[in-house]
């Protein structure tokens, strides 16, 4: 079976050209600088130099680009000078993400990224195709309804009630919880300081002492101490005020960021898989292949818990192209993505159960790590605190301030008592659990996370001992999965008694060895 070659949408070239120009932006900036800014005033020249060639290139590229579906492969032909034919087997495709910004939507098209786990780059970039073509692409590559007469069922799945829907007020709440806005504020400040957008003269020309005196004069007597410059209290309050303002601004930006990026977040069940649609700019539609979920984590920070909310993220992975040559690493690229950016704690377990029926976070029998771990954590902190105390003592003694160096000695007891309390809480709430089909690990006190990995998804299991572990007869147990990113919570159970660790290790090995890993 082989379909006819499909071409890109006829309005593809502006998108290709735009991406090309974006890729050329550095040379363009370089050229502008090289010309001493002359080019900036010659927009016509710039467009002739860059825009017109980019458009011509894009147009030719659009004409040569085509793709077809065979029995089990997507075949993509591309290339201007060197013709390139790429075969991507459906098996390996683990996501077809559709990206749509408002321009896409105006033209009724989408950029489709065909992603396998091999490397960070998409295996094929269909830029751009119509929505019908995108549906067809998904049907073939993701395989749910490859047989004929699938249109009806496709429509019904489209109308099915969503598994999860995140309303705007939840996103606002998420913005309140998250610190994401900090990045926005930092970016804005950075840009502002670079571009000098604000008028520095305006700032310096203000009569600041006058304004201060004015405010001071209007302040009622009982609050006058606020502005008493003798005590310095005013400075502290001013600082606190600025801090508070910054916090508020960060929160506002966080909310805005989440509203733009995750507006209308919905999860749809689509055959075996899940489909997440979200975002105003860009609008993203991405398929999460349920059977390729390697690991699932539920996280709840302190603020999350105040609102009785949590977030769920999953790591998916696909096979790399192991035929691509000898010595090709068989490791996989990771994609950690949100299953739910924010969800009621009660519903989180339910959603995970729905996605991975074997994983049930309710009614688990949690086993603790060693209680004596708290002592080791405090010891570590004590080792870190000693030089800091000495440094502060020296600073106090040498700096021209009327504080004795001895005051630094307050630091160790305060830090160590707090550390002791925190460590005990942390140890009490950190633990693991083994069920019929999965291993669970939870950790954290103020911010808590639980991660589950099914035995089927375990690649290797290991037990590790640092010299300190060895001395205290402790060990940690770790589980390796496909597509594990460098960040994020994973199964890594520290501070176990050596015998316990060995038991867990052999149990995990037994479970893993019995099952077959499937992509």
């Amino acid at each position, binding site marked *: 079976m082989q379909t006819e070659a499909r071409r890109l949408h006829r309005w593809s070239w502006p998108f290709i050209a735009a991406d090309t120009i974006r890729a050329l932006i550095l040379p363009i900036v370089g050229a502008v600088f090289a010309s001493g800014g002359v080019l900036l005033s010659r927009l016509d020249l710039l467009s002739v130099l860059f825009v017109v060639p980019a458009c011509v290139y894009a147009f030719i590229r659009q004409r040569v680009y085509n793709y077809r579906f065979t029995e089990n492969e997507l075949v993509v032909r591309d290339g201007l000078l060197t013709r390139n034919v790429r075969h991507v087997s459906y098996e390996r495709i683990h996501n077809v993400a559709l990206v749509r910004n408002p321009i896409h939507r105006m033209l009724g098209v989408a950029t489709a990224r065909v992603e396998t786990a091999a490397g960070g780059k998409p295996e094929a970039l269909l830029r751009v195709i119509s929505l019908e073509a995108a549906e067809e692409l998904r049907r073939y590559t993701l395989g749910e309804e490859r047989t004929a007469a699938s249109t009806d069922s496709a429509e019904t799945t489209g109308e099915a009630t969503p598994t999860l829907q995140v309303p705007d007020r939840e996103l606002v709440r998420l913005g309140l919880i998250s610190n994401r806005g900090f990045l926005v504020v930092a970016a804005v400040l950075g840009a502002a300081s670079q571009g000098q957008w604000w008028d520095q003269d305006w700032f310096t020309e203000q009569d600041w002492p006058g304004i201060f005196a004015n405010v001071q004069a209007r302040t009622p007597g009982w609050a006058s101490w606020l502005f008493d410059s003798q005590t310095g209290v005013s400075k502290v309050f001013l600082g606190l005020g600025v801090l508070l303002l910054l916090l508020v601004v960060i929160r506002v930006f966080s909310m805005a960021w989440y509203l733009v990026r995750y507006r209308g977040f919905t999860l749809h069940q689509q055959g075996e898989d899940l489909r997440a649609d979200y975002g105003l700019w860009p609008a993203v539609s991405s398929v999460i292949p349920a059977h390729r979920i390697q690991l699932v984590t539920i996280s709840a920070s302190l603020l999350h818990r105040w609102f009785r909310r949590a977030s769920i993220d999953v790591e998916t992975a696909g096979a790399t192209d192991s035929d691509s040559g000898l010595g090709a690493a068989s490791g996989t690229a990771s994609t950690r993505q949100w299953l739910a950016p924010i969800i009621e704690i009660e519903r989180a377990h339910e959603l995970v159960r729905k996605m991975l029926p074997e994983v049930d976070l309710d009614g688990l029998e949690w086993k603790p790590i060693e209680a004596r771990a708290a002592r080791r954590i405090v010891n570590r902190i004590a080792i870190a605190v000693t030089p800091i105390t000495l440094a502060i003592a020296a600073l106090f003694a040498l700096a021209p301030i009327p504080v004795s160096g001895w005051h630094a000695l307050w630091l160790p007891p305060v830090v160590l008592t707090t550390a002791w309390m925190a460590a005990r809480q942390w140890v009490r709430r950190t633990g693991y659990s083994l069920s019929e089909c999965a291993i669970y690990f939870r950790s954290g006190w103020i911010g808590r996370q639980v991660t589950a990995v099914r035995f089927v998804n375990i690649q*290797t299991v*290991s037990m590790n001992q*640092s010299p300190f572990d060895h001395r205290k007869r402790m060990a940690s147990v770790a589980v390796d999965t496909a597509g594990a990113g460098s960040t994020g919570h994973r199964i890594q159970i520290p501070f176990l008694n050596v015998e316990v660790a060995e038991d867990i290790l052999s149990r995990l090995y037994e479970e893993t060895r019995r*099952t077959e890993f499937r992509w």
Partner: protein
Amino acid sequence: MGDREQKTGDFDQAEDGEQHPVDRRTVKVARIIGFSVVLLISIVPLILFTIGWAVGGIPGPVYLAILGIWLLLLASSLLLAYRWPAARHRHLRYLVEEDGLCIRRGVFWRTVIWIPITRVQHTDVSQGPVQRKFGLGTLTVHTAGTAGASIALVGLEHGIASRLSDHLRPARATDAN
């Protein structure tokens, strides 16, 4: 016991589900490589300093002091290059059973890792130039994992390495299509 551990040339022994050390000659291989690397790296600054001294850029006493430090560093590096491979070998054990491989290693930071055959993607047997002289090889087991995407067992007798490689390769039908 110590005697039996020394010669692991017999495959039946290697696959018996017991812990085995790798070939003792790998210590020699590692020492040869270690010495060559240490000498190669240390010779460069010596030449530079000597040229500096010869053209008069570095006064005699300073040169002598540098020479002393250089000798000290060289001696300690050579000592390390001599002692470390033996320690590493002492702490390295592997175990092969019906459907898995276990490697136990680490002088200070110790690790026990279990690799089930069902998770092996493919295996490599490689041989460096010095290893070839001694008939040794390195077995690398690839999994779909991340931290454990490729796990190397250095210093097996080459024959054992290839046979283990065959044993560990999954007997599954081709999953390429």
